[in-house]
């Protein structure tokens, strides 16, 4: 008997297990109303079924009912359904339950609005004949229950396929498969959100069908479902076999050319010496090469002269000026009050001197992050004058030094990333022990480490968060230790997944116009690099070099890739992200102003600074007020940690300014300027034109250009009565006209 009972028990257990496993494999219920119209529907999950429908329909988008303040027209939902319980309250309980009707679900205000049966500012979001509509009706009919605690938790989503090589014009249907903690899986393609990172290369529709355009390269589709993000990455080669690539000078070339080979994109030719010198001088030192430098460089027969020129530029003060200008803008070195001048100058100079001395990048960041004392004795303290709120401190540090945008995670789970509010406040906790003591200078504090256990309360849960860097943990930090030093330690660790990557990508963008990850400060799983192997190699090299910024610049600009011509060929003309050629870009405001001054042989006078100070060496934003030129060409006001604050696009105002503005005209007509100097010189018209071309374009004029320009210079002007004017005056005015035409040319305005 005992054995029979035992056998019965075993068999029963076996069947129970089978049933359980089968149920688990089935995963959350899938309502197949269309195929099984008569089947009795099971319980509908609000978390796993209703909220994804609202998300797909766009109801809980940040621009709609998930708006930060009070949603839309009094109805609020959590962003992308990240807070199910809050959504339950808003949907079911709020407004005395007026939004849902259990007895007549179809008459629920929620559905009447969503289907457009009553006026809805957001338009029709649901088809009454669709499955999603029926799911919501059934959920309401079942009592609109909240299952936040019991619903099976989503673990991950997988995109099928995750990558593909697609021909131009091809289509690819994507599938999004959700995996749950109970081991079940579900096809959620219908409810997932799809977004292309480069719509000019590939578009994707709501159903997940990717359509590739005719631009070769790499493109990613971000797929989101319930806080999980997946990526589909497509390579789009063109039907062209590249036989030969230029000689690779370093690993940058090997990895760029390797990628181009896969994509069937040939490179442009190597650029000529003159263009190279102009390009590298503008990119490394923010200035045009002088005529002497150009002549000497062109006459130099050495094979290594390009590398030598790079070294000379890296050793120059202008390199430090130019990059300090770049960094201090992002570090918000702005003047809001006259008394800011001392701290702004001190801070700018600290950055500039650090770059000049080639202080290791990790050390520089460490000195900034963990700055203590007074501004005068320790200038990086000035950053804490500009950025006072610990939340802003963490956000700026994350975006600038880690390339991670954490702002979203302050109020809700990051929509495109894995960062939660706990991650946000854990990072903020590193700055929780920053103590301040007043100084004699208004608005300026002494910064010190305030002893105590670091921590910041999560604003939503109230739970105290101890310091923890992104996705990792650090040992408990005793009250005596400044937690910022621990953060700096974590950043400088060779295994840090963000720190080195962020800066090499930022510098890559500086020299190549486009980041390997774009935008350069938005590094996330859902935004992959266009050439991940290259990014990883740059990162490894930078770490191995001891965070050497000059070595990074050297690596980037010594490469053949950097030294390719900007002139496209038929096979690479559409390439905008694989660096098969140099992508021209407009000179930044300060660089352009200096270039105009150098070319016109004038100097812009900036208040309180020594005469001759270059625009790239301006310590803060205050000079924008006195310089319409800098303003119109987009010099930033140092309000944002994002480089995007600098306006690099072209505008009508810029064209009009160059053509008509008094400050430009006065430079061309300066009594000590180039036009005057050339007019007084005993050079021939041809020599004059050659000087002008050399100083503006770093090259000789073509025979056609020479003929045209000389023809214009020797033209005799006439007065109002038609009589020839003084030949000297005529020449001077013709020279001014020629200079004017030159600075209005694209070749002058662009680095190419």
């Amino acid at each position, binding site marked *: 008997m005992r054995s029979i009972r035992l056998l019965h028990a075993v068999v029963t257990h076996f069947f129970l297990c089978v049933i359980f496993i089968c149920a688990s494999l089935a995963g959350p219920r899938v309502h197949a109303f269309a195929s099984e119209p008569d089947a009795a529907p099971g319980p509908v999950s609000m978390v796993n079924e209703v909220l994804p429908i609202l998300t797909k329909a766009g109801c809980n988008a940040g621009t709609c009912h998930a708006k930060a303040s009070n949603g839309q027209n009094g109805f609020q939902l959590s962003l992308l359904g990240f807070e199910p319980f809050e959504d339950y309250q808003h949907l079911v309980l709020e407004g005395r339950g007026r939004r849902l009707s259990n007895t007549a679900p179809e008459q629920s205000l929620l559905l009447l609005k969503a289907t457009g049966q009553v006026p809805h500012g957001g338009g029709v979001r649901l088809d009454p004949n669709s499955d999603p509509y029926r799911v919501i009706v059934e959920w309401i009919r079942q009592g609109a229950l909240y299952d936040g605690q019991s619903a099976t938790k989503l673990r991950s989503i997988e995109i099928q396929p995750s990558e593909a090589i697609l021909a131009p014009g091809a289509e690819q249907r994507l599938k999004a498969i959700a995996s749950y903690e109970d081991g079940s899986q579900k096809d959620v393609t219908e409810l997932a959100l799809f977004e292309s990172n480069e719509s000019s290369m590939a578009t994707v529709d709501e159903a997940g069908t990717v359509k590739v355009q005719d631009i070769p390269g790499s493109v990613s589709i971000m797929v989101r479902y319930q806080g999980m993000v997946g990526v589909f990455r497509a390579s789009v080669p063109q039907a062209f076999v590249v036989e030969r690539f230029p000689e690779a000078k370093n690993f940058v070339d090997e990895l760029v050319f390797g990628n181009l080979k896969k994509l069937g994109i040939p490179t442009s030719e190597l650029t000529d010496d003159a263009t190279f010198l102009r390009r590298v001088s503008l990119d490394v030192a923010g200035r045009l090469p002088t005529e002497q430098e150009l002549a000497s460089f062109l006459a130099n027969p050495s094979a290594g002269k390009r590398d030598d020129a790079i070294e000379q530029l890296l050793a120059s003060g202008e390199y430090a000026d130019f990059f300090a200008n770049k960094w201090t803008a992002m570090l918000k070195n702005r003047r809001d009050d006259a008394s800011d001048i001392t701290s702004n100058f*001190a801070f700018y100079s600290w950055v500039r001197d650090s770059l000049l001395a080639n202080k290791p990048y990790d050390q520089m960041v460490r000195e900034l992050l963990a700055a203590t004392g007074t501004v005068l004795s320790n200038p990086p303290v000035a950053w804490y004058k500009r950025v006072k709120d610990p939340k802003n401190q963490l956000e700026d540090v994350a975006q600038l030094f880690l390339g991670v945008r954490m702002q979203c995670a302050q109020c809700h789970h990051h929509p495109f990333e894995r960062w939660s509010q706990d991650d946000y406040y854990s990072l903020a906790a590193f700055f929780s022990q920053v103590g301040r003591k007043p100084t004699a200078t208004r608005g300026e504090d002494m910064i010190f480490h305030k002893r105590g256990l670091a921590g910041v309360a999560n604003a939503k849960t109230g739970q105290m968060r101890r310091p923890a860097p992104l996705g990792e943990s650090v040992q408990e930090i005793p009250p005596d230790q400044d937690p910022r030093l621990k953060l700096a330690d974590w950043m400088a660790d060779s295994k840090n997944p963000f720190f080195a990557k962020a800066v090499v990508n930022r510098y890559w963008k500086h020299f190549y116009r486009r980041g390997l990850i774009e935008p350069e400060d938005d590094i996330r799983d859902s935004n992959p690099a266009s050439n991940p192997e290259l990014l990883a190699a740059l990162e490894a090299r930078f770490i191995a070099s001891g965070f050497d910024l000059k070595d990074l610049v050297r690596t980037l600009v010594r490469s053949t890739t950097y030294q390719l011509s900007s002139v496209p060929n038929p096979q690479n003309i559409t390439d905008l992200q694989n660096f098969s050629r140099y992508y021209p870009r407009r000179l930044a405001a300060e660089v352009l102003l200096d270039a105009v001054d150098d070319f016109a042989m004038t100097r812009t006078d900036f208040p309180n600074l020594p005469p001759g100070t270059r625009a790239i060496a301006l310590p803060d934003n205050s000079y924008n007020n006195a310089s319409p030129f800098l303003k119109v060409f987009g010099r930033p006001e140092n309000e944002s940690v994002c480089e995007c604050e600098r306006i690099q696009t072209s505008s009508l105002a810029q064209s009009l300014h160059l053509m008509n503005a008094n400050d430009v005209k006065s430079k061309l007509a300066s009594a000590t300027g180039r036009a005057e100097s050339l007019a007084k010189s005993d050079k021939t018209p041809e020599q004059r034109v050659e000087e002008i071309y050399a100083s503006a374009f770093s090259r000789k004029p073509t025979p056609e250009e020479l003929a045209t320009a000389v023809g214009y210079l020797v033209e005799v002007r006439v007065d109002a009565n038609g009589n020839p004017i003084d030949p000297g005056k005529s020449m001077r005015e013709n020279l001014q006209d020629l200079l004017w035409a030159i600075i209005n040319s694209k070749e002058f305005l662009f680095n190419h």
Partner: protein
Amino acid sequence: MTSIDLHVAKKLLWLILACSVALGNAAVSRAQSVCLPLPRLLSISPMGGQVGTSFDVTIAAENMEEPGPLLFENPAIQATAKLDAQGKPIANQYTLTIAHDCPAGLYEARVLGRLGISSARIFSVGKLAEVVQKPGNTNLANAIELAVPSVCNAVVSTRAIDFYSFEAVEGKRYIIQCSARGIDSKLDPVVIVGDSRGTDLVAQRTGDTLDFVAKTAGKHTIKIHELTFKGGPGYFYRLSIEELPIDAPMPIYPSTRSVSAFSWPPSGLALEPSIAEQEDVLSQSISLPADISGRFYPAADVDTYEFDAQAGQTWWIEVASERLGRPTDPSLIVQMQSPDRSGWLDVTEFNDISSPMKPSSNGYAYDGPPFDGGSTDILGKLEIKESGHYRLVLSDLFGGTRKDPRNVYRLVVRPAQPDFCVVAWGLHMELRNGDRNALSKPLALRAGSTVALEVVTVRRDGFDGEIALSVEGLPTGVTAQGLRIPAGKMRGVLLLTAAQDAPQGISNAVITATAKIGEQTISHPMQMAQMVWPIPDAWSEIPSPRLVSGIPVSVTTSELAPITIAPSERRVYEAKLGETLKIPMIHSLRSEFSGAVLQLKTMGPGFDANPQFDVSLAASSSEAIINLASVKPPPGEYTVAFYGSAVAKYRYNPLAISLAENELKKAQEEQQRAAEVLTQKTQALASISAEQKSAAEAELAEATKKKQELDAKVTAVQEKLKRINEQATPRDTAEIIISEPVNVRVLAP
């Protein structure tokens, strides 16, 4: 420190007064609209010299027509007026001699003028060869070549960069110091070393010394500028360059002392500490008491000292580092080892020495003195409640990322040695809406005036008793009252009154603070703090107060106080607690004022609570009212004074007008006579014979020359008179008005 040599000064004071009135030539325009003009020494050029040398210096002073003797605190430095070819003193110029035995260091100089003794200015004495900047070195081509070693005395101009060069030897180490803030300059210096083409190699922008090892031999450049490219006469500096062995410690250059340093060292501290920090030891064992020297080095350094202590013991702990001139913020945690020896438990924490008076914030107007007597150093009491093993954990809250071996500290753990120290500064207050003046205030009294010094104390090791102040060596006619800091208080007010009939005079005062501590009477000299520069608005320019040496006090009769308010009788006024005391006051008015009423508050220990009362500025007398029901002082004797602010129609040196007018009249008469002579000579030439013509022409030329000289003289005197008249034009000037002190006796009800 010694007091300035005044014996010559006294003799010359009357002479200065006479000359100044006659010359009526203010050195600097009086743009300020708060506080009556006071004499201030602004700069000495060159601002230093080599031991055992003699050279000429030029000074710039404020509110001083014809500066008199230039006086130094060390008699080893002597200055005599520089004379022109006719033996007359050249304005503002002196010949200075530094004795061979004068120790290198910083010394204060002051100058005597019509209004009395000036504020102090630092003069440096060194051992290196000195040069003076030649103007125009603002580009590479005009760089001044410096010998190694040497010192260059220079001034940087606005929006300019000064260029120097030196010959470097490859591998050699050069120490380049630009002394500025530490020698009273307004300059926050930037020092950049570049290659021969001026390309920057290394920069130092925190005012610290630049330590440079030459990688190549040959000419190098040094560039100097102000951090924000400000410049002008106040932005002077001494640029020194020396070669030093590679492994030699970085020298610390002399500097003036911050106000916070008045509380260091404690009495009886040994010259050298008995224990040195062992940097290679994780936790150093000591026994108490202890006197330790250490340093916050390297970055984020934490020094730990372990000791045994018994329950009931009380120790006083003091740390000096900021007061030694280092940019540090020491923090000390006392921990006790847990009974199971598994860890350490916090016992107490020490941070900062509070300022005896809360310094003014950066608000719209003053809400405290613009001086901070506190420090980021440590002074605190440790009571051992449980016998056991303890440790002191000492760190620098500013030291997380900075590594400077010069950041030294001195840690003293001692049984209670009750003591005190005292510092004083001129009273500052808001004189008009939003006023934040931070003017240097030398004790140059006008006859009939009363000035107030705020006297504050840092008390040590539990001392809480009364501190008495005694004043000696005041000029004739000057008295001091308010001579105590009450028990338990941190502040007192010392009043210096120059009688209305006080004669012109100057002397070095000695103010001593004395207290009875236990059975002992302990005395310490009172120190003085002063603004380095007269800053009209502390928002636009950050004031830099410091300690000064010596307390010279002068009285001028060239100008008298615009108003004197004095009790009608010199007696003790009595009243019972709870009563209202009315004191008849006599006004001696010597100026017009804007407004009819002067609102008076009361100063004196505890008398701040007395309600403000009004007196008429036009009246010749008034009644001061003390409501003892509001003040509620303990019965006893008090010295009080009444103070407020008033806007005087101040005229600068009006006496000079009549003298200049007389001078002009005399010059014009001479000019008229010369014109007549010239006319005669011209007419005579027309009718003279040929043989006499040559002599007559010579006479005519002579007369013409004389006439031209007198024309020029008349023009010069006219311009002088115009300037004097402009200066003497009444100008609204807000000033602190303080009555003469009144002695009050409060009786029990």
